[in-house]
């Protein structure tokens, strides 16, 4: 009921349910009476969207604005990232378009990985298996994917590449069964062996513990020795001082058991005795000297005392003697001298005694000094002797300790050896102790116990898992479809698949990626689309348009916001390509819906009707295209207040006149002209060279890009508040609009800006399409040449944004036979001025039709036998190919190309021939070449179809045909030729008969097996190639003609 309600009713019902908590049945809208509801209950809503899109109803489609996505593949450029974001962010459909080699497959691979990361299931569908396998080879082994490749009914598993075959259901089941079983058996064996080793190691732990204990003891002893060594001098000093009896005591203890220790103690005793003797001698000397000193000091004291006693007497006699001698009778002294009698004699006696005492004192003092010196000497002698004894004892003891330490170290070494031996017996996976200590052993033993326990659990697990695998592999295989999150199939392969095909009841997919969508019928797409919720269609633009019935440009008027629907491009070319790819469709099931959807969903600014040109020195703004036949209806008027501005009005009969062109005076710049038109005419005449528009949201500005690349000399044209137009000029595109900018600071937000663009330009980016233009496979020069040769109508490559890789690149043409055989055979190349046009009357007639016996006779007999019975060969051209190949394999750029050199996805060199017989002939000649046989360069030879979705660094293309007089076709048709031309990454060498090419370019109409259209396309391609041969192509600089002997 809900689905059958209109969106408005649905909204109303939901809001009612939110208010009431429930809905009553009578509140539902009445069912249509006899009419089919808007959607059938079993028809998912997404399909309605799809049907509306396919029917061209895009007016109500809301633009998708996907957020940027962090990608896995860091090498993706901005456009590829944008494509990924759009593919993932679309609510319904997303179309990605790009010429060959623009990285579509890489985008697809990234989208698949991103989808897997989101838990989505993806259906990858392509009309041919090549596109599928190319993607699968990139990401098939990624962990996040569980891919399944459904082989088509026509595919045999053994014909698939091993990496692809491994992704088929049968191989996956086999792998799940056999490999898992074998792996489980092997793992069980390993775990059991590990377990046994750990158990064996269990027995080693006691021995390791004992060794560790001994080692610990030795270590302790050595530590004690080291500590004693540090305090040995103190110890001996203390022993010499008689303070330490430990030595003698220990000596007594050990002497009883250890002879060495006894000897040691005897030495200690000897030392002690010697020290004691020394001390005694010193003490004796010292006593004797002290006694002498004491005596001398006593005598000295005595003499000094007597001296002091006599001194007053002398002093007293001195005046008396002086008075007597001077007869100073008047003095009392004379009289006292008189009464004393012989004072002179007494004085002399006293003075003699004093003198004698002085002498005695002097003598005693010398004695004292002598004795003091002797005492000092004795003490020094004692110290020296004692020091000598101590030093000798210390030396002795240190030597003894060193000896013991050495012994202990030797013991440790022995234990170490034994430890290592025991450790080696432990399991190599076992927990070896980090060091020979009891703690480390205990820790390791505990770790070992745990490890054993874990290993036993692992063994039990492995045993049970093995038993489970042996019993229930089929049930595991039955789970496989549930795990698959990427199914890659062709439509036929999918339909026939038992697990995901028409008969299977598989859950719907979240995402459909349709590769080569331009070659898929709408029926096939719709069939797959029913099973998916979103659709990403990837394909090539229509790039072949032989009939000249080009697509009518999208007419958009700024006053009519609804874009007129473009007439669908003719898709005969696509049909032909599909036919060439082995697809046959009835007229009602032709491909073409991709291009139709693209036209409806993609906003191509080139379809805007505006253009700018210079008429002499005046700028002319063309507001609508005016055909040459319509120009006579143009009427000219001057602007009243600005007569220098000329208005050209198209006044077709029976049609209202319309302003068609505005011509500005030479004095007005583009800036002023644009501003004038916007302000006065309210028109926004935008001429944009890009294929796509793109919104870029910056922090300050919203930018609406209309050109892929920016112009260096751009100028800004303010249009209104916060809106400006950035205009650039280039030689190719003239004046063009690079982008429109909307200033966020002026209040512009994305929805308003989108609305503004829609109102003024009539275009809007629905966010569901993205065109890839940058050549990822081939280098810019080559891409530029191919753009001109093949893809001119499809817009070509954006060769400005590609990375410029060093090394030789470009296109080389080797004429067979040589154009100018009179020149010296030096193999010089020529590029530059136009050459003489090749002969128009016919080719050299070098081709051989193997079906004609007389032709085959012109081949060497050994080759004739191994070549097929039919097909064209050109022996001389094949030889030229091999000669050129021999020269090129020496090129370091070629020789170094391979996976190691960063070249992936194909061989270094591909030799392509338009006919299988010619390819076989070249293979044989390569096999005969000693140089090529020994060269390490990876060279593959095939027809163009064998290289679909593959590429090579260097491609040598043998056109083969060389008819003597008439125009002939080249290979299967123009598609095969284009395929061959687009396989090279860097360098393309084409071999051909210029005369035959010239003859072909002159023939119009059906030819050989080609119908009129195909023949016309081939003729156009050949004629374009011929122009390059004449030096007239747009990118003639990258095109070289090798002259001489072709080598």
């Amino acid at each position: 009921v809900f689905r059958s309600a209109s969106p408005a009713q649905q909204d109303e019902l939901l809001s009612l349910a939110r208010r009431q908590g429930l809905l009553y049945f009578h509140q539902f809208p009445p069912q249509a009476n006899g009419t089919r509801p808007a959607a059938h209950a079993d028809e998912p809503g997404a399909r309605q969207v799809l049907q509306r899109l396919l029917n061209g109803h895009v007016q109500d489609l809301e633009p998708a604005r996907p957020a940027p996505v962090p990608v896995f593949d860091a090498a993706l450029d901005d456009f590829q990232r944008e494509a990924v974001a759009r593919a993932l962010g679309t609510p319904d459909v997303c179309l990605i378009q790009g010429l060959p080699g623009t990285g579509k497959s890489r985008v697809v691979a990234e989208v698949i990985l991103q989808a897997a990361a989101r838990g989505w299931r993806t259906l990858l569908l392509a009309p041919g298996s090549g596109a599928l396998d190319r993607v699968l080879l990139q990401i098939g082994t990624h962990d996040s994917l569980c891919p399944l490749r459904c082989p088509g009914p026509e595919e045999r598993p053994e014909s698939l590449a091993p990496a692809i075959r491994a992704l088929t259901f049968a191989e996956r089941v086999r792998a799940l069964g056999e490999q898992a079983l074998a792996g489980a058996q092997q793992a069980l064996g390993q775990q059991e062996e590990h377990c046994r080793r750990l158990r064996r190691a269990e027995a080693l732990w006691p021995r390791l513990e004992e060794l560790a204990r001994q080692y610990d003891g030795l270590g302790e002893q050595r530590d004690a020795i080291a500590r004693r060594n540090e305090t040995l001098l103190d110890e001996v000093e203390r022993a010499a001082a008689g303070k330490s009896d430990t030595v003698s005591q220990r000596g007594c203890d050990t002497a009883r058991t250890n002879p060495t220790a006894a000897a040691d103690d005897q030495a200690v005793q000897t030392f002690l005795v010697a020290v004691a003797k020394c001390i005694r001698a010193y003490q004796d000397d010292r006593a004797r000297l002290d006694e002498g000193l004491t005596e001398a000091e006593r005598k000295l004291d005595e003499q000094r005392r007597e001296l002091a006693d006599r001194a007053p007497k002398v002093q007293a006699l001195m005046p008396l003697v002086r008075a007597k001698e001077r007869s100073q009778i008047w003095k009392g002294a004379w009289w006292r001298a008189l009464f004393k009698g012989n004072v002179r004699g007494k004085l002399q006696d006293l003075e003699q005694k004093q003198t004698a005492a002085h002498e005695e004192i002097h003598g005693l003092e010398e004695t004292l000094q002598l004795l003091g010196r002797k005492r000092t000497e004795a003490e020094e002698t004692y110290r020296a002797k004692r020091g000598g004894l101590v030093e000798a004892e210390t030396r002795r003891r240190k030597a003894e300790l060193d000896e013991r330490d050495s012994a202990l170290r030797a013991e440790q070494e022995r234990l170490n050896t034994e430890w290592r031996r025991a450790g080696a017996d432990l399991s190599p996976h076992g927990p070896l102790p980090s060091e020979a200590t009891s703690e480390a052993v205990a820790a390791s033993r505990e770790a070992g116990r745990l490890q054993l326990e874990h290993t036993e659990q692992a063994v039990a697990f492995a045993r049970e898992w093995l038993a489970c695998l042996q019993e229930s592999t089929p049930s595991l295989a039955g789970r496989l479809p549930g795990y698959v999150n990427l199914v890659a199939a062709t439509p036929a392969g999918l339909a026939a698949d038992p697990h995901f095909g028409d008969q299977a009841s598989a859950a719907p997919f979240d995402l459909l990626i349709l590769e080569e969508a331009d070659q898929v019928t709408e029926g096939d797409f719709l069939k797959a689309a029913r099973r998916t919720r979103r659709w990403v269609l990837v394909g090539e633009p229509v790039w072949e348009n032989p009939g000249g019935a080009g697509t009518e440009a999208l007419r958009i008027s700024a006053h009519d916001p609804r874009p007129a629907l473009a007439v669908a491009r003719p898709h005969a070319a696509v049909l032909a390509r599909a036919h060439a790819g082995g697809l046959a469709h009835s007229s009602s099931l032709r491909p073409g819906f991709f291009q139709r959807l693209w036209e409806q969903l993609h906003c191509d600014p080139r379809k805007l009707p505006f253009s700018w040109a210079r008429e002499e020195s005046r700028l002319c703004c063309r507001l609508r295209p005016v055909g040459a036949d319509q120009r006579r209806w143009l009427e000219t008027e001057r602007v009243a207040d600005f007569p220098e501005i000329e208005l050209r009005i198209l006044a077709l009969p029976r049609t209202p006149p319309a302003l068609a062109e505005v011509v500005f005076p030479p004095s007005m710049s583009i800036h002023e002209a644009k501003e004038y038109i916007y302000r006065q005419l309210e028109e926004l005449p935008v001429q944009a060279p890009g294929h796509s528009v793109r919104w870029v949201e910056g922090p300050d500005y919203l930018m609406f890009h209309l050109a892929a690349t920016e112009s260096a000399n751009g100028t800004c044209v303010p249009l209104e508040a916060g809106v400006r137009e950035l205009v650039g000029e280039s030689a190719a595109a003239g004046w063009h609009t690079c982008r429109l900018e909307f200033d966020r600071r002026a209040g512009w937000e994305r929805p308003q800006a989108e609305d503004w663009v829609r109102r003024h330009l009539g275009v809007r980016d629905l966010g569901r399409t993205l065109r890839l233009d940058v050549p990822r496979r081939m280098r810019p020069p080559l891409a530029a040449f191919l753009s001109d040769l093949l893809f001119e109508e499809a817009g070509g490559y954006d060769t400005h944004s590609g990375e410029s890789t060093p090394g030789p690149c470009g296109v080389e043409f080797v004429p067979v036979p040589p154009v100018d055989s009179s020149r010296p055979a030096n193999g010089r190349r020529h590029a530059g001025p136009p050459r003489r046009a090749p002969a128009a009357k016919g080719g050299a007639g070098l081709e051989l039709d193997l079906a004609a016996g007389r032709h085959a006779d012109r081949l060497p007999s050994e080759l004739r036998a191994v070549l097929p019975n039919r097909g064209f060969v050109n022996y001389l051209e094949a030889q030229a190919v091999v000669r050129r190949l021999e020269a090129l394999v020496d090129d370091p750029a070629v020789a170094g190309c391979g996976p190691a050199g960063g070249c992936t996805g194909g061989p270094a060199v591909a030799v392509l021939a338009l006919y299988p017989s010619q390819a076989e002939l070249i293979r044989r000649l390569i096999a005969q070449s000693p140089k090529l046989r020994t060269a390490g360069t990876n060279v593959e030879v095939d027809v163009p179809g064998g290289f679909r979705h593959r590429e090579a660094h260097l491609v040598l293309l043998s056109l083969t045909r060389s008819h003597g007089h008439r125009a002939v076709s080249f290979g299967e048709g123009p598609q095969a030729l284009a395929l061959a031309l687009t396989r090279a990454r860097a360098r393309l060498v084409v071999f051909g008969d210029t005369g035959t090419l010239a003859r072909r370019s002159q023939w119009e109409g059906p030819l050989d097996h080609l119908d009129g259209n195909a023949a016309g396309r081939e003729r156009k391609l050949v004629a374009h190639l011929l122009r390059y041969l004449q030096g007239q192509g747009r990118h003639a600089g990258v095109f070289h003609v090798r002259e001489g002997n072709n080598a």
Partner: protein
Amino acid sequence: MTGAASLAFPGGRKLAGWWRQLAAYQPLGLWVGHLLLHHVEAAVRLSQPRRLDPLNLFLLRALELPGPLVQDQSAPLEAVLDRLNSRLHVGRQVLRQALRELEAEGLARADEHGRWAPTALGRQALEHQEYPRARYERRAFYFLDRRAAGEKAESLPHFLDVRNSTGIPWPAAEGAAFDVRTLQACVHQPAEWKQQHGFPLDVQEILAVDPGERETGPESAGEKITAADISNPTPSALPPSWQRVIVDRPEHILAVLVLARSPSGQQIVGLAVRQDGWVLQTATPLFTLSTNWTEVFPELAADPPLEVWQQAWRAWCEPRAVPATEINACRVARLGERLCVTGPPGLVERLRTARSDVFKGETWLLAGDGPVRAAAQVELAED
């Protein structure tokens, strides 16, 4: 229901016929009732036991196995897959998807360092080899609403385990709004209650539209939910809001309620009646109430008062031209399923003369004026 008086009830002969049809039930009593049912359809979260398949079982066990897998400080997914593959050998791609499935089922998850381990549910699954799996589906629930029948306004609709309802939409049920909380309350009842009332035990939650929720219709935001989603959703993903809308379709059904013997005592068996032709559908009971029937139909527990039966007898007699004095002289008494009427001889004679069905046991009376009325077989005796 606008009023019981306007409801149609079968006549006595029809009741007599039904009584004979119900012989297999060994009926002890009979009632006829017009029931208003809320047929409520809601999305529910179910919890159903799911057995672990071998790979998931061993994968969970491998996650539990000690080893570097759990000792790593950080374990990037690649390392985890390598370790698991070294134990299971089924390939990293299959393991990645199996891990994703375990995660989606809530059996295992990675912590912030990327180390994977079984969740509590995963450990429970390891222990019992199975686990309760959440899934969503829409289920129908029936609630008997007695309010619209003029009963007490405060009485809530009562859950009824109805099967094979043949009810017809009842647009006149505006007065009987259904409160979603009644349904939600049933989910929170104890298991005994659910078993007793037949409420599904596997229903864990009733999902409803959150009033503050943003619109997620089938076409909005690019989320297109197909019918497969509701039946096989990712366990952790709620159905979109439009599929969580609870829908009430009020239905009216005429039912015969039979008091019958059961191994555990007595039970009420509800049988639907097609009003067009008064066809009793005995093939499959509409519902069966065992011990709790008095809770659902309290009026069945007590027989209507004799005055009510007297009134019913009077109503039966009046169209048969029985004089009021004789009617008033009658005395009624209940005896099992029968209504014993003792009347004056004149009355008995009158009816006998008129060859009344009452003497053939074909006369049944319905007592009362409510939507559910007791039925009794009349047994007439002379006073």
